[in-house]
C-alpha cells in the first residue's frame, strides 16, 4: 500500500479551505501550516494567469528527511506515510535542510496568536505540540485510523483533492495519475513524491 494524493489544479479555486481545515484539525501554532497554498502569476498584462498550487508534505517514497534524521524520529510507515515522532525529535533541523518541498516547521518558541496569554482554545490544542521539535503533515493519521480522509481532502469544496492507494491500479488516484498525466514536483531530485498534480490547463 502506498497512500497518496492527487491535487487537481484545474479544480482548485484557491479558497484556502484546506489550509484552514488543516489548522483547525491539527491545532498548529502561528506560522505553522502543514497544508498551504502558493499563488503563482504568470504572463504579462493583459495575458496574465494565476495558478494556485496547494502544498503539503509529499510523503516521498524515498524521503531524504528520514535518511538524515539522527534519532529516528522521522519515519516512514508501511503505508507510505512519513511522520515525525516528536518524542524522539531533538530539533536538529537536518530534515528541514533535506526536504526540498519546505514541508517541515520548527517549533522554536511558544508563539501565540493573541499576545502573551493562551486562549482557551490554544491551551487545549497547543498542549499536543512540543517546543524545540520539527512538525509536519502526516496525512491526518488520527483521522485515517477512524476511516476518515485527511482534513484537507474532506473539506475541499471544489473536490480538488483525491486521496487513496497509489499501489492499487483501480483506485481513483491511480486512475487520475495514469489518465490525466499527473505530475510530481521536482522529480529530478529522486524523492518520488506521493502527491501528484493535474495540470491547470489540459
Amino acid at each position, binding site marked *: 500500500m502506498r497512500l497518496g494524493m492527487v491535487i487537481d489544479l484545474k479544480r482548485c479555486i484557491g479558497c484556502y479551505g484546506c489550509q484552514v481545515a488543516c489548522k483547525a484539525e491539527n491545532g498548529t501554532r502561528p506560522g505553522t501550516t502543514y497544508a*498551504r497554498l502558493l499563488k503563482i502569476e504568470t504572463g504579462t498584462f493583459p495575458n496574465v494567469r494565476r495558478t494556485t498550487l496547494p502544498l503539503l508534505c509529499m510523503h516521498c517514497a524515498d524521503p531524504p528527511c528520514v535518511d538524515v534524521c*539522527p534519532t529516528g524520529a522521522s519515519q516512514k510507515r508501511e503505508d507510505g506515510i512519513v511522520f515525525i515522532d516528536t518524542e524522539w525529535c531533538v530539533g536538529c533541523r*537536518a530534515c528541514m535542510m533535506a526536504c526540498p518541498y519546505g514541508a517541515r516547521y520548527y517549533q522554536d518558541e511558544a508563539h501565540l496568536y493573541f499576545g502573551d496569554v493562551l486562549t482557551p482554545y490554544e491551551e487545549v490544542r497547543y498542549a499536543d505540540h512540543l517546543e*524545540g521539535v520539527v512538525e509536519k503533515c502526516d496525512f491526518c493519521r488520527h483521522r485515517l485510523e477512524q476511516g476518515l480522509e485527511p482534513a484537507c481532502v474532506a473539506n475541499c469544496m471544489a473536490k480538488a483533492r483525491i486521496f487513496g492507494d497509489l499501489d492499487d491500479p483501480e483506485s481513483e488516484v491511480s486512475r487520475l495519475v495514469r489518465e490525466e498525466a499527473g505530475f510530481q514536483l521536482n522529480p529530478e531530485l529522486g524523492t518520488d513524491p506521493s502527491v501528484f498534480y493535474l495540470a491547470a490547463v489540459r
Partner: protein
Amino acid sequence: MALDDRLDLRRSDLSLTYRPQREWIEGRGLLLVIAHFFSAAGAGAWIFGAWFDVRAAQIVALVTIAILSGWAHVFFLGRWSRFWRMARRPHRSWISRGLWSMGIYMVGAVGVLLVGGDEGPIGDVLLAVSLAGAGLLLLYEGFVYSASVGIPFWRTVMLPLLSVAYGLRGGAAVLLILAALGEGTFDIDAVEVVKLWVVLSTAVLVAIYLAAAGRAGGAARESMRQLVSGRISPVFYGGTIAVGIVVPLALGAASLIGGSALLLLGVIGGASLIGDFYVRYSIVKAGVYVPLQGAGLPAVGGRG
C-alpha cells in the same frame, strides 16, 4: 525576533523563487556554524599537535572539541537534553556519525593526554583512536551539509573536501598562535610551509567549488551569485577572502622570505582562523532551496 517579524519574513521568503535557508544560520542556528568551526579547528589542531609533538596543541584541541564545539552543538538543539539520542543511527545519518566521531576522538585524546609520553602499544592505540576520531570529525561536517537534498549549493563532494582542508588549516593556525604565545618547541618553519600549502589549497578549492556551483545552474548558481555579488558578498570578500586568504598568504610569504617573527605568525594564525569561520558562515548562509517545479509550472519558492 517578534512573532510578526518572523511571519513577515516567512511571507516574504514565500515570494522568492530561491528561498533562503534560515534554520541553520539565524538565531540559535548560528551555534551550529560555530560548533562546526570549533570541531574542525580542534581536529586539525590535534592532528598537527600529534605530528609535530606539541602537547599544548593537543590540549587546546581537546578543550575546543569537547567543550566549545560540544556545548555549541548541544545548545543549538531544540531539545538539548535529548542530545544523546543522536547516536542512534550511525548507519544512516551523518549527524549520528559526527557524534560517534566526537566520542571516539575524546576517548582516544583523553587517553593520550593521561598516558603522557608513553610510546608503548597502549599509547599507540590511543593515539590511533584519537587520530581516527579527529579525521572523522574533519570529514563529517562536510557530509552533513552535502546530505541536504533541498539545497543544491551544498550537495557536492567539494564540501567534505573543503571541510577537511579548512580543518587542517585551522589546526596549523592553532600551532602558529601557540608558537607566538611561546607554547611548545617545534619546527616552526615546517609549520609555516604546511600552513602556506594549506592556505593555497583551500583558496584553490573554494575557487573550484564556486566555479562548479556557477556551472550547475539553478539554485546552486543563485547561491554562488549571492556569495560573490549579492547579500553575502561583504562577509565573503571581507572575512573569507581578505582576512582568511589574502592576509595569511601575504604575511606567510613575507615571513618565509624575510624570516619569521613570532608575533607575525600569531597574526597569520588568527587571521586564518577568522577566515575559517567566515567561509563556513558564508557557505551556510548562501544556501537556498531548490525552487519547486512541475510540468507547466514556473519555478517558485515553497514555504507557506
